[in-house]
């Protein structure tokens, strides 16, 4: 019995991965074949980008502040508090900015996409759309995925900027250090490779959270309870995958741009 259960679960996982790959690939191809729904792309960009701005600003600012607090305590033991800016800047831009923004936006938007599309599936609105001759993949999925990519890139830049500002606020107001020194340290040690690393990741994370949110939404079964399950699965899967993919991308980028 156990072997049968393992066999069935393994098949389900392989099938789900296969379905997801085909789904994600179709969404990409749709961008290069008409009709492309640009209005929906702009509407989704507003929902994902502008709508996520407050949480990204707040989380970025306080993460930068915490980094400055923690690093100042450790660095002061070595008399190196002057490099707090470098530490906060590099950590935010290379790692925490993209990952934190990815997870925050996944929590807000992957869940929203899964529940919205899931509700449309269980109330037959997706079938109605198909019956009216409109492809839901083109109309609903592709705009959401590409808006997620574009907006996550911009939101990451915002999170980086507010993270560095948060660090500056802590450095000046709590650690009573020189703000100019902090900002100079953050700026001077920044290289193009760091920025490339920091801005490559959101492209992958945006694609992941958008495609996973839509994938779970479009696969919803089982009524309103199913919508809840899809929403949870979308948030959990996209958040875990963002961290896992971050590891892989970081490894590859560090090989390309060694420190």
């Amino acid at each position: 019995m156990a072997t049968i259960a393992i066999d069935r679960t393994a098949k389900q996982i392989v099938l789900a991965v296969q379905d997801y790959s085909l789904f994600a690939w179709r969404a990409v191809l749709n961008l290069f074949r008409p009709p492309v729904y640009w209005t929906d792309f702009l509407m989704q960009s507003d929902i994902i980008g502008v709508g996520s701005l407050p949480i990204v600003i707040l989380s970025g600012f306080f993460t930068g502040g915490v980094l400055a607090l923690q690093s100042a305590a450790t660095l002061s033991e070595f008399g190196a508090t002057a490099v707090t800016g470098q530490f906060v800047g590099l950590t935010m831009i290379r790692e925490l900015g993209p990952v934190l923004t990815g997870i925050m936006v996944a929590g807000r938007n992957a869940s929203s996409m899964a529940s919205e599309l899931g509700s449309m599936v269980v109330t037959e609105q997706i079938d109605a759309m198909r019956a009216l001759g409109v492809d839901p993949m083109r109309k609903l999925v592709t705009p959401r995925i590409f808006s997620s990519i574009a907006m996550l890139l911009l939101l990451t830049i915002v999170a980086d900027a507010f993270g560095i500002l948060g660090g500056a606020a802590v450095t000046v107001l709590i650690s009573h250090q020189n703000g100019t020194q902090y900002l100079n340290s953050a700026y001077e040690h920044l290289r193009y490779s760091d920025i490339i690393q920091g801005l490559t990741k959101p492209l992958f994370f945006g694609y992941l959270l958008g495609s996973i949110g839509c994938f779970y939404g479009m696969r919803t079964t089982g009524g309103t309870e199913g919508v809840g399950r899809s929403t949870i699965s979308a948030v959990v899967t996209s958040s875990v995958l963002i961290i896992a993919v971050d590891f892989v991308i970081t490894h590859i980028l560090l090989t390309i741009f060694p420190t």
Partner: protein
Amino acid sequence: MSDTSISAAQPPAGEQEAGPVVALRGVSLDFDGPPVLEDISFSVASGETRVLLGPAGVGKSVLLKLIIGLLRPRKGTLHLFGEDISTLPEERLFPLRARAGMVFQESALFDSLTVRDNVAYQLIQERVPDGEIDTRVREALSFVGLEETFSLYPASLSGGMKRRVAIARALIHDPELILYDSPTGGLDPVTSTTIIELIVKRRDVHATPALLVTHRLQDAFTLCNHRFDSEQNCMVPLPAGETNPNTTFLMLEEGRLILDGSLDELLHSDNKFVREFLE
């Protein structure tokens, strides 16, 4: 077909000569379990209205979704507008689906759009000018008697009103085939009659071929025994003993087609299941 049938809203001769709008041959379907539909064969000709009868859960709605290509048959061939859609890629199905109209069981209106945008959904996608959209939406809403709902959202409509808006949405594109999935299910008798009247009106005024799924015999009989009087602008009963010749019946029993014929054949069937259903 009954000898007492009257001739009503015959489609043009050219359309009669053309092949059936829908043709199923040996269609079977399952969802990784026992068969939902097995060896189904029938067709819908131009100008014909077919009433698909059967109790809940026998696969009537699934059959409608197969016909419009929302599901794929496991076996058999399914022709829609002369094209075999059983293996047709999804992308090539969209233009075919756009030629048909479907009224879903629970209306399936887009809850984030107004009635105007719901009814005009296809026109908006085709980038028809706003002025023309408004005119055509008002015409379609006038057909179902709901002009006043133009700017409302589906949440503020009753079940019967939603069903009528769904009919307007299905009709605005002047479809070549209409599929009604239990259009009167869960509605009160007065609203049900209003909806059946709309279906009769569409049948008799435009002669649009249709497939109507229902488990309500009274709806089926009303369709067969009434005609739309354009002068009085209402549905009137046919003289006693007369039936609409273009309205015929199908019946499903646990995924199998057990009847394909006229009202007369339905009423005089020897099949035990049909007898029980009628009684």
